[in-house]
């Protein structure tokens, strides 16, 4: 039967040689090489669940009165958009499961991307000839952040409205053209015209997903064309020779297994752990707000940035040059992404290493890279934690104002200390290895010498 199918396909497409090569395409084996796959499978779950949700969602800001089954909202004024998501969560059977799975998938998608990025960065996988792959990946991360933010905003509950207001504030704060840009996006000042929700919707369900899909396709094509990087675990692995498990049969069941595991975990979370219970938040009005409003975790670093900046606008002679939210909301992520984009180029310039690299570094093999990466990572993570300082105040009774002041200093001092420590640790680990290897060689030599003596010539 299989023979028949193969013959049929080959006779009509002539792809037997190509398919054979594909089946025997090699995957070097290490658990961290699978993190990108997790993101890929989460994306598939996102597309599937998102399509289902789009069958029910209405992108309308027409004011309606709620008469649905959720009692605490009955009789309240809300937008059609919010009511449609309420219906998905209450009256549409399995609707809540799909909605929660979609939201968990978004959170996990971005977590997987970040983990994947850390692996790529700290092992030097982005080096020549894979810079394009890396830049495509970073671009996908940026688009995904925006995509997640739009999904969070489309619901038009109290939290999403507050999130949109902050996004508007940040857009407005961009020097030179921020206000024009915001006016263009919102069709005038906040909260904008009805068309604004249509714009968000088309961007969320078509423009950005299509963009991610295109970038993803290019990303994967480049990975396949240049083959995977590998750690040097055996002597036969080298810059010229790749050792790995073939796509079929070795890799296929494992990759599919991972796919089902990702989908399974997401559906399980979607059914068992409540995420964004929008019926509890109530509808948004520009004049209402709630305490403890936060964005999804992947934008938490921005709220931290917004909260840490001291209270000044950059004003010259009564002319506002840079409004305050720019620093935390736009400049901060701008610096982080500029660093990520420029890093392969910077490293090449500074180190003068223009060679091709197929073998990965371990973090200790490149102390400078590791130290700089640790600095950036801990910088972002600390700002992220600062975004949750109010919750820490509520839970542990540690003054918020004091925390903010501590963070304002700590976000500069702690990363520097950690970077120095990691640099030192890399050096020490390397030195210990050298000692270990020397010892090993000395022992082997002594052993060989003893054997030579023992054997009569």
């Amino acid at each position, binding site marked *: 039967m299989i023979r028949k199918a193969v013959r049929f396909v080959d006779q009509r497409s002539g792809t037997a040689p190509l398919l054979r090569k594909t089946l025997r395409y090699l995957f070097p084996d290490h658990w961290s090489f699978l993190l990108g796959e997790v993101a890929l499978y989460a994306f598939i779950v996102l597309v599937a669940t998102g399509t289902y949700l789009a069958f029910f969602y209405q992108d309308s800001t027409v004011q309606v009165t709620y008469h649905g089954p959720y009692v605490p909202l009955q009789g309240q004024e809300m937008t059609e958009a919010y009511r449609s998501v309420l219906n998905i969560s209450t009256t549409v059977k399995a609707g809540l499961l799909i909605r929660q799975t979609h939201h968990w998938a978004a959170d996990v998608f971005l977590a997987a991307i970040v983990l994947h990025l850390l692996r790529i960065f700290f092992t030097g996988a982005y080096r020549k000839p894979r810079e394009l792959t890396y830049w495509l990946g970073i671009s996908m991360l940026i688009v995904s952040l925006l995509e997640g933010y739009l999904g969070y905003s489309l619901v038009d509950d109290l939290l999403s409205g507050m999130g949109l207001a902050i996004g508007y504030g940040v857009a407005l704060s961009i020097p030179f053209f921020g206000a024009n840009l915001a006016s263009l996006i919102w069709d005038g000042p906040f909260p904008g015209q009805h068309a604004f929700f249509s714009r968000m919707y088309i961007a969320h369900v078509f423009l950005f997903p299509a963009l991610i899909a295109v970038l993803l396709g290019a990303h994967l094509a480049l990975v396949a064309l240049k083959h995977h990087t590998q750690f040097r675990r055996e002597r036969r692995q080298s810059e010229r020779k790749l050792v790995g498990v073939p796509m079929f*049969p070795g890799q296929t069941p494992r990759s599919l297994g991972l796919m*089902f595991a990702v989908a399974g975990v997401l559906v399980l979370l979607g059914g068992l752990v409540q995420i964004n219970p929008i019926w509890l938040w109530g509808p948004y009005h520009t004049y209402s707000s709630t305490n403890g409003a936060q964005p999804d975790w992947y934008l938490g670093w921005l709220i931290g940035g917004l909260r840490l900046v001291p209270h000044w606008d950059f004003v010259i002679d009564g002319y506002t040059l840079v409004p305050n939210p720019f620093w935390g909301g736009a400049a901060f992520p701008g610096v982080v992404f500029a660093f990520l984009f420029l890093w392969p180029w910077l490293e090449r310039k500074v180190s003068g290493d223009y060679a091709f690299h197929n073998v990965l570094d371990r973090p200790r093999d490149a102390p400078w890279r590791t130290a700089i990466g640790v600095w950036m990572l801990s910088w972002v993570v600390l700002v992220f934690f600062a975004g949750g300082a109010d919750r820490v105040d509520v839970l542990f009774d540690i003054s918020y104002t004091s925390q903010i002041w501590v963070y304002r200093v700590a976000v500069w001092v702690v990363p520097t200390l950690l970077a120095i420590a990691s640099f030192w640790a890399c050096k020490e680990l390397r030195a210990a290895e050298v000692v270990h290897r020397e010892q090993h060689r000395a022992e082997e030599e002594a052993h060989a010498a003893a054997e030579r003596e023992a054997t009569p010539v």
Partner: protein
Amino acid sequence: MARARDVLIASVALLLGRRKTRLRAGGEERIVPAGEPQPGAELLVMALLVAAALCAVAFPVFYALDRLPHQTQLLGASLGLSLLFIAAALILTGKKLIVTEEIEEGYPENEHEAEQEALVAVVHESGSRFTRRRLLKGAVGLTGGALGVALITPIVSLGPVFDMTPFYKTPWRRGRRLVDEKDRPYRASDIEEEDFYTAFPEGADKEALGSSLVLVRLPKDELDLPPENKGYAADGIVAYSKICTHAGCAISLYRAPLFQADEPRPALVCPCHYSTFDPGAGGKVLFGPAGRKLPMLPVYIDRKGELRARGNFDGPVGPSWWGVRMRKPTT
């Protein structure tokens, strides 16, 4: 009875009977190396698949049952577990039943110099009949640029991109009454100390950023308005824009000390980034990231005791933008 026995025997045969894999004819070398059979793992994989099937069957059952308590949880658990059982079966298959060969292969060539040269030559030689290259490049660039601009021009229709006046507009003007969410006018006597009130301009869109106000009444000896805000308060009542000047959230926190001697002083606070404003001092920033004071609206009490605006805000409403301080808000 006999039938049951047949079924039993058949299933035992199914479970235990193994097919000998036929190799390709002749003594040809295998592509995928052989491995020992693992009957235990095979059984486990089958058990996992059956478990997955059972869970999957449960899903439509849970779906069909109306008024099932915890329906979402049951649906999620059945589908999620089904997927996880399949995952386990696949991973087990990959680890135990499929030969995991580690084979080697050369990396693709780093570059193809001859091909690169050929590409360059094709492009160069194709253009050999052009003599005025620089001019031509200029013309192509011009056309490309012009067409590009033409193609993005319709984007301007998305919003009033060059006109900044909407950002300065608010519905407030002299004499406009302050009303509550249900459009009932506020009387000065409604406004009590240690409480806060949300007010809107009568007959205007409540959602516009320039509309909503937060009203508080302070003891007159606690009012310490800056000179430019003299006369903004009416009988101790002060009115501020409800929209934070930092990032546009609503200011719905009023810190109103019960016992002034021992507690933080009155303040208006935004819950998004905790910008804190002083209602007694014209909306000055006390803490938090806001870079601009809260815009204050001058109010007065009319003959009927109702609150009305005396004019517009003393500064633009909502989050700041490039050049925000240059103009006053207009109606």
